[in-house]
């Protein structure tokens, strides 16, 4: 494994691999190696040697850090100033069996947590990047200001490209103040349909719901054995009191309501964020679907026996089930016009199936040309996204 300590050294390593037509597995801490398709490469290039916050201006709501900086380190620095990463990226160590996620990793995989539904994704808040193309050339896109439409936005393209279009070396992103208080309403709902309707009612209310999840298996430990809808308010204390009260009125028709706040509320949302509520068995494969929320009950009904966890008002569906091609095809069919990711599975399945939805043919042709521009020899994470 190569762990260069400078962007220049990393660029040199990529340039050499490009010249030798030698594929590289690109990663940060490697905490998401279990996602998508295994990379076929003899050598790994990690950004974990590129660490440190390079700029932090709390009053400007902007922070920059090298790609290998652990997310935990950034969260700690922000917390000191009462701020937070807006998109609430998950810690998937329980699900994927490896921790220490880096900033570059969460941006390259565009993984966002519950707050995404109200405040945007990891990708939405990336203001600027530095990255190394597949031929070793360093480039920048965006900048360090909150509004910028100068030139083509390659930040968006790189965010979520799983290291296949370039190696992120430094990322600048927008942050926001962390809310003073948080309150969560838990509704015991009769079924998933009612649960999603409750979440939609909450998200369609004027009270600023910042998290809207659905636990099909409930929370038995808290005396809620059936499906439970969770809705979160984050704000100043007096607003949390007011808004949870008003939200209670909106949600009353949907089921019995209990209120969680403080540490209890925070740990509930960590369980949603990190998908630990999915309760996947070690041998299960795991999928992550994104659909229109109102489609979610039918998606879930099409996957009998699967374990499920819903977030983003029902639009984000975590699925755990048998690690088989038949189950994969069922998940893909259930996702319909939505999107899917094979999140975790035995290598054989990861090699056998499409781990992401295909692009329409005309777009795939453009995609191939853009990939060739950014990675002419095809050495960056080959196969990772299924091609």
């Amino acid at each position, binding site marked *: 494994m190569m762990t260069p300590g400078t962007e220049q050294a990393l660029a040199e390593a990529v340039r050499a691999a490009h010249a030798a037509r030698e594929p590289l597995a690109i990663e940060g801490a490697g905490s998401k190696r279990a996602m998508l398709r295994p990379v076929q490469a003899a050598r790994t290039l990690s950004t974990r040697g590129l660490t440190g916050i390079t700029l932090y201006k709390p009053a400007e709501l902007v922070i920059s850090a090298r790609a290998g900086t652990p997310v935990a380190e950034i969260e700690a620095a922000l917390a000191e100033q009462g701020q937070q990463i807006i998109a609430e990226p998950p810690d998937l160590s329980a699900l994927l069996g490896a921790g220490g996620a880096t900033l570059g990793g969460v941006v390259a995989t565009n993984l966002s947590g519950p707050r995404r539904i109200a405040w945007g994704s990891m990708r939405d808040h990336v203001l600027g990047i530095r990255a190394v193309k597949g031929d070793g050339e360093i480039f920048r896109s965006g900048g360090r200001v909150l*509004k910028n439409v100068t030139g083509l936005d390659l930040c968006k393209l790189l965010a*979520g490209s799983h290291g296949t279009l370039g190696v992120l070396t430094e990322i600048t992103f927008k942050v926001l103040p962390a809310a003073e208080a948080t309150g969560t309403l838990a509704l015991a709902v009769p079924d998933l349909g009612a649960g999603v309707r409750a979440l939609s009612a909450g998200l369609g209310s004027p009270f600023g719901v910042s998290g809207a999840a659905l636990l099909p298996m409930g929370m038995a430990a808290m005396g809620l054995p059936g499906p439970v809808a969770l809705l979160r308010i984050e704000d100043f204390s007096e607003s949390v009191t007011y808004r949870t009260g008003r939200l209670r009125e909106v949600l009353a028709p949907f089921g019995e309501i209990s209120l969680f706040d403080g540490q209890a509320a925070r740990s509930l949302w960590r369980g949603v964020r990190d998908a630990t509520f999915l309760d996947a068995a070690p041998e299960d494969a795991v999928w992550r679907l994104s659909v229109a929320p109102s489609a979610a009950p039918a998606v879930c009904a099409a996957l009998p026996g699967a374990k499920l966890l819903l977030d983003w008002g029902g639009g984000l569906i975590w699925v755990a089930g048998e690690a088989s091609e038949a189950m994969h095809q069922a998940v893909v069919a259930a996702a319909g016009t939505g999107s899917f990711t094979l999140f975790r599975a035995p290598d054989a399945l990861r090699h056998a199936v499409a781990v992401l939805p295909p692009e329409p043919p005309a777009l795939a042709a453009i995609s191939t040309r853009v990939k060739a521009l950014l990675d002419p020899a095809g050495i960056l994470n080959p196969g990772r996204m299924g091609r």
Partner: protein
Amino acid sequence: MIRLPAPKPEVLARRPEILAGLARLVPADALITEELRLRPYETDGLSAYRQMPMAVVLPRTTAEVAAVLRFCHQQGVRVIPRGAGTSLSGGALPLADAVVIGLMRMNRILEMNFEDRFAVVEAGVTNIGITQAVAGEGFFYAPDPSSQLACMIGGNVMMNSGGAHCLKYGVTANNLLGVKFVTIEGEIFEVGGTHLDGAGYDWLGLITGSEGQLGMVTEVTVRILRGPEGARAMLAAFSSIPVAGQAVDAIIGSGIIPVALEFMDRPCIHACEAFAHAGYPLDAEAMLIIEVEGSEAEQDALLARIRDICARFDPISMKVAESAEQSLAIWKGRKGAFGAVGRISPDYLCMDGTIPTGELPRVLGRITEMSEEYGLKVANVFHAGDGNLHPLIMFDANDPESFRKAEAFGADILKLCVEVGGCLTGEHGVGVEKRDLMHVQFTADELALQRSIKSAFDPDWLLNPAKVFPLLGETVLAGAA
């Protein structure tokens, strides 16, 4: 005067055949070829530059857009996509050998879904039209560029438009779920859908803000949001620009996320007050308009917090709106700022750089010095929360020297924005206006990379040429107004 690519002689020579070919693709009323009716399309919101196109096509369907693009691609004809023509950067400026494809007739709202909180609209629906359509259910479409009465969502997507409320709600890119995209070859496909964050490359993010360089968008799926219970504004006036800047920092540092945080300097305050009689303090050097959202009680609490913060900076005056009407009065001057400046100067250039907010005092100080050096007045109004400046440079378009100086002054401001860590354009786009400054912000290699990505979509460079990228190859001078 602006340099444009030299018209292709072989295209000009085949004008009759090309027009006949277009006539076979769209109904007769959708093709404009006579000079008098082409005239309205010779310019856009940057009216200093004008160029008559060869023809204008006004399709009503995606299939017609695709057919016209396919034909133009086969014929090697350049294409200028156009929405409402409100671009302040010349994004829709035609070329003499180009066909303008205007999407204003594609103005239907196709679907409104309040349970899943999205709307599907055609590209020619106005920005305000979306909000008007969903307002009955208490919803709105968040990005609100000041041209929102006229500008169209297709243009908003292409320019990644912002507005006064971006600090909380983000820009266009943060409020989209999908688009229907047509390539220069006439291929149609969907990007995104009605779900969030599809897996795979984010083509939607690349297309957004691409200024018509990659293809055309005919339908847009936008997120719609439930509006707050209410909103109210206050104003706070300060004796100096640096002090107002410190107040902005303190407000943001307090944990409050105002829904809008606008800044005006003395010349702008005076222009707006004379125009709108909004009750602005004429003795102030800088004024903030701060808007918060929530219930009446929440608004009171937040405005009280902000008032306490501002009080620490020895304000000349503060005025908290007691009602929605008073709030509108506070906004009235700001919303009319461009018109107000237009009243005191025959012409003005509206710049659009963004700076790190901490650089505000330094940058505004330097702009004041430059104003004296150039002998041109400038009024500053901008979105303080996100550092997006809008210096309005006043000049006289009847005096070529005055226009030349105004352009040079504007370029100097934008270079300064880049020098302090900002960018050339925060929301208006590069267009033709800032094209030749791109090298100030990007290296030659970075520009080459962006160019090559355009080429991956548009190998013959037929889509909206002369915009965004510095020109290569033979050029001609096009007429100024």
